[in-house]
């Protein structure tokens, strides 16, 4: 099991609970999408995965390691997480150094090679010597994903990886994820972009008020789309229109 969360509660110091009795499992090779309203607790769960935050109750295991008791430096070798805002995690003077930081810190013997591979996979080779803040926001997003990929962890967790990306970068990510999937990596992806991720996903979790309100294989979600409205989740407009038009042509 790559991720096993059992009865997880979490609250920030002040305020109401963000996650309540949250339970889920992700097996090796799976790709789970987490969807839900703004403020449902999706990004908070990602910070619990790599141990930046600890559950106030319950447990999360990453490849069998309890996130509450395992040092974050050790967890980083098992799960690489990207944040929604690239500015929160970029600090090196060049794109290449930024990507190299992770695998080198994890003492990966082939850190340089992993960096080259990530640069190629995310289409950043020509930007390798640029300062990350000279990149456009969409390119910085690719950089954070490249940095996570280069850590060579079995599990990758991304927070809205396609937010603000144009068609060109979306295709890079789509091809990149397919390749990483065939390499046996597992994914946990927080997103509103169902259009993009449903074809890659094995399962979809709908988070509502800190709980898993609905969980189903990706294919089933499309059939039960009407159930999801109450959790603030809808299928992409074009998908809904095409379904409507298809139904119309059958009738």
């Amino acid at each position, binding site marked *: 099991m790559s991720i096993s969360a059992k009865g997880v509660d979490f609250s920030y110091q002040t305020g109401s609970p963000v996650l309540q009795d949250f339970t889920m499992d992700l097996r090796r090779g799976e790709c789970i999408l987490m969807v839900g309203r*703004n403020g449902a607790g999706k990004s908070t769960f990602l910070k619990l995965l790599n141990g930046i935050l600890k559950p106030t109750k319950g447990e999360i295991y990453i490849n069998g390691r309890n996130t509450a008791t395992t040092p974050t430096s050790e967890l980083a070798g098992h799960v690489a997480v990207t944040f929604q805002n690239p500015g929160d995690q970029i600090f090196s003077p060049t794109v290449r150094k930024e990507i190299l930081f992770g695998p080198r810190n994890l003492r990966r013997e082939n850190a340089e090679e992993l960096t080259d591979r990530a640069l190629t996979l995310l289409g950043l080779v020509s930007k390798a010597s640029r300062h990350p803040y000279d990149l*456009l926001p969409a390119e910085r997003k690719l950089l954070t994903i490249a940095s996570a990929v280069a850590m060579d962890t079995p599990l990758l967790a991304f927070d809205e990886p396609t937010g603000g*990306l144009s*068609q060109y970068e979306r295709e890079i990510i789509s091809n990149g994820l397919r390749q990483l999937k065939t390499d046996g990596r597992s994914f946990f992806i927080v997103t*509103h972009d169902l259009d993009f991720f449903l074809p890659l996903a094995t399962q979809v979790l709908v988070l509502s008020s800190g709980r898993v309100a609905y969980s189903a294989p990706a294919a089933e979600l499309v059939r039960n789309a009407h159930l999801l409205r109450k959790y603030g*989740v809808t299928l992409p407009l*074009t998908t809904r229109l095409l379904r409507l038009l298809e139904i119309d042509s059958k009738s």
Partner: protein
Amino acid sequence: MEITLDRFSFHYAPSQQDVVSGITMGIPKGSCCAVLGPTGAGKTTLLLAISGALAAHYSSGVGEGEIAIGPKVFRPMPDKILFPEVGLALQESHLMISGLHETVRGEVGFSLENIGTDTKVKEEKIVLAMENVGILHLAERNPFMLSGGELQRVVLAALLAVQPAVLLLDEPSNSLDAEATAMLVRILRGLHKNTTVVFSDHQLDLAILVADRFLVLQDGEMVFFGEKKPFLKNLEQFKGFLPVDQWSKVIPQLSRKHAPHIRLLSRLLEIR
């Protein structure tokens, strides 16, 4: 206010290439214009130029041509930020938060404070703006403790509160959930006629739902500028740099089918 650009070009430093080049277009008062194009096409630069932020913050930049906003003509562009007549929301919402207020209510009210709004009127406007974007329940929360999508709505509320004549939004639907996106559609449709809106997007859904003018940029050049019908008719032409695949399947069917609900939908989307 009407926005007109005449052969407007800009590059960030003297030795660099143009980031936007020779843009000529006119957006009538009360129109809603979508600026579409791949990363690096010049969408953000164009919005910054109209807002006045480009000249104010990039002093080494070089512009040419002119930008007119209502009766005022700027050569080559406004040299100071035109708030509150022109309101701008950046793509990165966290950069828009002042940090001077500990609550969302205070943050939304900060824009009104800046233009010296009377206290009682201010309170009413704050509540109305928060209600409009569905964040009343977040009123007493700390802006820095909000999620990305929530923060984006706070920024929008702060802008709407001052009722700018021109509203510039850089990728406004980026981190929004389905309900907030539907709310944004309702807000932008509701603003029509009173406010001129220019927004950028990588996706087509919001543009097709709310825009009546379409500007497509590629490598800083204007590939298309026009109304909705010619834009939709030429959709295939943008394949490869705009996500047109799904809409290319939907539009011909919506245009041809005659079932009453399909006709109604086509009319609502102004596709026929």
